[in-house]
C-alpha cells in the first residue's frame, strides 16, 4: 500500500468523525482516497472549487488560506492545504473541528513523507591479505 493511501486509511481509523477523505495535488490529480475512483474525482473537483471560492472571499492581497470548514446540516467538509498537496474530508454533522483539523494535518504530513530507503546489511570486513609473520618472531 502506498504511503498516502496508508495515511488516509489510518485517518479514517483514528477519527470516527471522518467519513471519507481524498488527497490531491495542485493540479487536482487524486493521489489517494478512501472512495472509489469516480467518486474520489468528483469529491476532489468539488473540494477544489470550494477552496477557490473561499479564497476569493478575502481577496488576493490578504493572508493565504490554510484550512477551511464548511458546515451544513448534513455534515461538514474540511479542506487543509500544505505546500502543493490538499486533503479534503467529509464528516458527520457538528464535528469537533479542532480535532478533525489536527487529524487531517497529521495525515497530510504522513502522506507527504518520502519512503525511507532500506540500507543493505553491512558486510563483514574480511582481510584481503594474510597478516605477515612478524620478523624476528619466536623460533
Amino acid at each position, binding site marked *: 500500500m502506498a504511503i498516502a493511501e496508508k495515511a488516509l486509511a489510518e485517518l479514517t481509523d483514528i477519527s470516527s468523525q471522518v467519513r471519507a477523505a481524498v488527497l490531491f495535488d495542485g493540479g487536482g490529480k487524486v493521489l489517494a482516497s478512501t472512495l472509489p475512483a469516480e467518486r474520489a474525482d468528483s*469529491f476532489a473537483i468539488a473540494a477544489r472549487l470550494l477552496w477557490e471560492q473561499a479564497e476569493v472571499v478575502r481577496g488576493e492581497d490578504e493572508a*493565504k488560506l490554510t484550512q477551511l470548514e464548511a458546515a451544513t446540516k448534513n455534515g461538514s467538509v474540511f479542506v487543509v492545504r500544505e505546500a502543493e498537496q490538499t486533503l479534503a474530508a467529509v464528516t458527520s454533522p457538528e464535528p469537533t473541528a479542532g480535532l478533525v483539523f489536527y487529524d487531517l494535518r497529521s495525515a497530510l504530513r504522513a502522506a507527504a513523507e518520502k519512503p525511507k530507503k532500506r540500507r543493505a546489511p553491512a558486510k563483514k570486513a574480511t582481510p584481503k591479505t594474510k597478516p605477515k609473520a612478524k620478523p624476528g618472531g619466536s623460533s
Partner: protein
Amino acid sequence: MDRRSALAFGAAIGTLLGIGLYGRFIRQDQRVDLYFEDGSMVSLAGGSPEAAVVIPYAREALRAAQ
C-alpha cells in the same frame, strides 16, 4: 376590529415569526469557517452572500462523498 381582520392580523404575525425562526435556526446550521496563514479566522454565517457562494460547493462535495 372585526373577527376577520383579527384572523388576518394573526396570520400575518405568525408568518413573520415563522420566517424569523427559519432564519434563526434553520439557516444557522450552515456556516463556513476560513483559517488564514497569519492565524486569523473568518466565519461566514449561513445567510451571508459570501457563504451563499461557497456552500453549494460544500453540498456538492458532501454529495460526491456519500
